[in-house]
């Protein structure tokens, strides 16, 4: 087994007095793609939002247990969530480029606002990030256009470029293609396979074919519990749990 970069131990999270995630242990290996699948309301999104401490930004949210990044617990008041989020980037369900910013500024805003001013550096980062997100050729002549002027699929790749620009080691993707058409979806999937050379990817998806196509490992969640976690090929062909089998064959969920 290769190096584990991110790990959760007995992670519990929820809102008010409702546990959405009920004590989950998972390990994510370096430079792999892990898919999290499960029916709506199974805690996938809450779980993934705990990994970069975004969960706590919602009023009434709580969490307990451990999240280990390179063996170091990143939960708790002593750890600055801002520093964690630089190392663990996130792409959301709906493409959400910053409305008032140009394509160029959307990509480099993370660096700019943390004090990088040198325009040669910014230019280079913008180009490499956009290339890494497979968007460079489509936008290189209109970097000053507003980010929101792009199509949905392009916007999502812009959001990926924006996240890559701050060089995270882990990339979280919360249903990144659920708002996109099949062609844009295919592009993002291709990109995920490319990107795992440089980052570790955790992707939440509703789409089981997508999980089967792009992930190395798959975790199946049900009502806040981890039901099964295995190599993707094995989980989809020979699930050990009956609930997993029923879900992947479309008999519930």
């Amino acid at each position, binding site marked *: 087994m290769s190096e584990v970069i991110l790990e959760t131990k007995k992670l519990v999270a929820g809102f008010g007095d409702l546990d959405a995630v009920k004590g989950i242990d998972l390990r994510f290996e370096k430079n792999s793609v892990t898919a999290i699948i499960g029916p709506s309301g199974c805690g996938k999104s809450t779980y993934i939002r705990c990994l970069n401490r975004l969960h706590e930004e919602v009023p009434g949210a709580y969490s307990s247990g451990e999240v280990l990044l390179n063996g170091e617990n990143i939960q708790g008041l002593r750890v600055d969530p801002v520093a964690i*989020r630089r190392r663990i980037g996130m792409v959301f369900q709906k493409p959400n480029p*910053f409305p008032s910013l140009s394509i160029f500024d959307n990509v480099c805003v993370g660096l700019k606002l943390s004090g990088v001013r040198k325009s040669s550096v910014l230019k280079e980062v913008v180009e490499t990030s956009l290339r890494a997100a497979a968007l460079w050729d489509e936008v290189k002549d209109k970097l000053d256009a507003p980010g929101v002027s792009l199509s949905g699929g392009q916007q999502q790749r812009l959001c990926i470029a924006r996240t890559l620009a701050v060089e995270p080691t882990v990339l979280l993707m919360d249903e990144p293609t659920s708002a996109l058409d099949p062609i844009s979806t295919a592009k993002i999937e291709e990109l995920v396979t490319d990107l795992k050379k440089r980052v570790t990817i955790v992707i939440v998806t509703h789409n089981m074919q997508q999980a089967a196509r792009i992930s190395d490992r798959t975790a199946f969640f049900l009502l806040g519990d981890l039901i099964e976690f295995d190599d993707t090929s094995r989980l989809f062909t020979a699930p050990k749990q009956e609930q997993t089998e029923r879900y992947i064959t479309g008999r519930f969920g």
Partner: protein
Amino acid sequence: MAMTASDRARKNRALQKFIAKRYQRRKIVNGLAYLAIGIATLTALVPLFSVSEFILRKGLPGLNWDFFTGLPQPVGEPGSGMANSIVGTAILVLLGSLIGLPWGIAIGIYLAEYGRGRAAGIVRFSVDMLSSVPSIIVGLFVYTAIVVPMKQFSAFSGGVALGILMIPTIARSSEELLKLVPQHIREAGLALGLPRWKVVLQIVLRGSMSGIITAVILAIARVAGETAPLLFTAFNNRFWHDGLGQPISSLPVQIYTYAISPYDEWHRQAWAAALVLVVFVFAVNLGARTIFRNKTKGSHV
């Protein structure tokens, strides 16, 4: 008990007749209500148009080059004007904005981004109360708080009074505008590893800039015509002002001074000043609204 076919037909006919009668009645009532609303709207517009027409008629004869370049002169002397009041109003409004703008936006940011529960409720309620405090009371407050200790009417105290009056408008409209920015934009910023205050100032606030500028301009238009809070703060000055620590003239106060004087000459100038003030406020209002409409049309935040 089973109904026969003829029973049912009779019932049906009666119902039809009833509905037809009700329909007639409803149509008449609807027409009357429509008429009443039309009349009410027209009556509401009458004061606006008659005031504009009146000011235009009375104010135009007093307008000439001297009005914009000269200083107030004794009655009968030629070349009398209000240059000092026009500049004074500009300075007072600028001072007011310098105070009211950062303060108001800060409150708006607190209410929209950080305020939760009871504390935010109290702040919001206080801001709303402040906006309904009569402007003369604000003037009295500044008089006691600044003019009396400094033993001096001053442009500075007038600016503070106007600034306080601008706070509620700016605070509440920036709160509303910030709330229009969807939550996922904030999350996107946070997910980049940016501290919350930077996300708020550089991303969220920047996204609603055009709206906030409009709110500021509307607040300026509102305080530019304020007289009461300036009467015992900025007071008045027949000459060019002598620094911010000294009294300064302003259009509204000058209008007031001239209007209560017994001289026809001064009355004419007061009307001219009223016209200038009204045109300024209308123009600013219209301009801000047009910009805002164009800005909001194309962009979907």
